[in-house]
């Protein structure tokens, strides 16, 4: 029988650009798995729903997938904010909710059924910042971040702690809001402090634009970015103006591991565009699930099978597009209730050169 897997991602709305890439990653992986005969002879059937990046929609979609479509487990939602709304539903229904793009603190502390393979900024930024500081001999930095978005604000908090840790003075901290397109005012102010580098907790589209505008103001500093930088979009928009940007992530398009190269090629062929980190993480997540399911005997009793997935998943190991992967238990929650699992992965530090990220040596 088919194994029904729910996919709840933001396919429309401003978060759609991430959700669509994620959906693509899932579809690619599922198609590959099914082409090889599925899991123990069972095909993976994806039921994809659009949660629009809105919390009520995320709840509705989760409920539809869990109670009506009776899926084995659910992937998604796209945004951390939506996950805070939807994951409690999954936990209450005792269904695994597996996020591939939720990076906020506390997501996996909501309950034992929450899993994610998205790497947290806290695991990556200290590494990449240290490398950047060394590489460019950085003495002081300026910071810019999106202050009304959970992802970029979270990233900023980690950057702030990291910079304090590594005793790097910050000349100026600036914020912008979703939908802003003109960053010149902030950049002009940052320029006055004459920093050695600019730390940018931003998504790729905004980052590309910020870099271009910084250059047009005569600023030549390198940029240090988070996960958000890890997208071909950065170069679509900024081209070689983005050169020398430093970013750390478990996934890099330049990682020559065969699993990754195969993924990139297949993705390019299927969707006629280059994948980004969102797609890669989704792709790996589906494979992690499939590998786990191989060891689970599905009984046909939905409740039992759902529970079996939760029990089996933490043991998963995988070496995929994003490199070696395993789960680690989330930090204990304040209330002392059971928690879910975070990703345990190593970051690769990359530097942008000639319109692409290469591994920083």
């Amino acid at each position, binding site marked *: 029988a088919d194994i029904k897997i729910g996919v709840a991602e933001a*396919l*429309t709305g401003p978060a759609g650009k991430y959700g669509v890439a994620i959906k693509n990653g899932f579809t690619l992986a599922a198609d590959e798995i099914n082409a090889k005969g599925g899991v123990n002879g069972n095909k993976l059937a994806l039921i994809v*729903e*659009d949660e629009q990046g809105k*919390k*009520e*929609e995320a*709840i*509705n979609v989760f*409920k*539809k997938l*869990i*109670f*009506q479509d009776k899926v084995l487990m659910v992937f998604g939602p796209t945004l*951390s*904010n939506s996950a*805070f*709304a939807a994951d*409690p539903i999954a936990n209450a*229904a005792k269904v695994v909710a597996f996020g591939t793009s939720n990076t*906020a603190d*506390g997501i996996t502390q*909501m309950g034992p059924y929450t899993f994610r393979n998205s790497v947290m900024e806290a695991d990556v930024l200290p590494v990449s910042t240290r490398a950047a500081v060394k590489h460019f001999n950085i003495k002081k930095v300026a910071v810019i971040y999106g*202050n*009304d*978005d*959970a992802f970029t*604000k*979270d990233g900023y908090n980690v950057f702030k702690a990291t910079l304090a840790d590594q005793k790097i003075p910050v000349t100026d901290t600036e914020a912008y809001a*979703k939908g802003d397109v003109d960053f010149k005012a902030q950049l002009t102010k940052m320029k006055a402090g004459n920093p050695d580098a600019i730390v940018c907790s931003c998504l790729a589209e905004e980052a590309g634009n910020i870099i271009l505008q910084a250059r047009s103001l005569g600023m030549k500093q390198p940029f240090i970015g988070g996960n958000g930088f890890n997208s071909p979009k950065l170069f679509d928009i900024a081209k070689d103006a983005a050169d020398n940007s430093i970013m750390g992530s478990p996934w890099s398009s330049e990682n020559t591991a065969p699993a990754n190269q195969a993924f990139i090629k297949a993705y390019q062929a299927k969707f006629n565009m280059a994948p980004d980190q969102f797609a890669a993480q989704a792709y790996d997540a589906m494979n992690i699930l499939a590998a786990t399911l191989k060891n689970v005997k599905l009984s046909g009793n939905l409740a039992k099978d759902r529970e079996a997935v939760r029990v089996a998943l933490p043991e998963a190991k995988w070496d995929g597009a994003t490199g070696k992967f395993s789960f680690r238990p989330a930090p204990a929650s304040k209330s002392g209730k059971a928690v879910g699992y975070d990703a345990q992965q190593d970051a690769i530090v990359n530097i942008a050169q000639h319109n692409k990220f290469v591994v920083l040596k």
Partner: protein
Amino acid sequence: MLDWWDAFWSTYNTVIYSIGVNALLALSIYVTLACGLLSLANAAFMGIGAYAAAIISLQTGLPFPVALAAGTVLPALVALIIGIPTLRLSGVYLAMATLGFGEVVRIVLLNMTITGGPMGLNGIPLKTEFWHILLLLAIVLYILARLRRSKIGRAFEAIKADEVAAQLMGIDVSGHKLFAFVLGGAIAGLAGGLNAHYTFTIGPGNYAFESAVDILTMAVFGGISNLIGPTVGATILTVLPEILRPFRDYRLAINGLILILVVLYLPNGIWDPRRIHAFWQRRKARKGL
């Protein structure tokens, strides 16, 4: 049968809760529209109510009714304070000032620690139950219906039609406007409190410009000449996206199209007593022939 109902209820109960909450929101803007005020502050009031109620639930052990009450009273107080200077404005200027107020509220929520910044508040306990929403909606409907049939409702109507003439009928125009504004704020806040306790999380982005416009759309779509209109409008516009799910990527386009068509063919809203009345008259006439 029972199984079917169980599955239906567990799938769609949030949608049904949302219908109730959205009906409250549409009614909250109906109150101000009824006396001719185009106020777009109700999303912000909803936010204030939601945060107030959620903070009480998260940080104190106080019972749910207390949280809801705080979520109703606090926005009403804020409405009272900002209403006094703002309600001198008319038409779109009022709309803009209230929208500006909404933006300020959003940014304040975004920058305070107690509100959790852009992350908002998470892990809000699930306390709202179906009968809470039903009961509160019924109470609000009852109060508004009573008001409508009294001198206050008539005063609203007079103010909406012509403020100067209304004053000269002995109506305290600014007092009535303020009352409508505060009442609207309280209802929106109540809706916010209820909503926060079944969506587990609230964030500053939930109460911005788009929400303000959504609330207005529900009310006007349903019809604002009486209380049934906003309720019907909220119901349809909440359920519609669920029904249109099969259209996938283009469902919002179809949603938009339906909005246009309804507005075009039923410009006074879905629930337009005059049209319905005329319809029955015509039917009667035809039957009589």
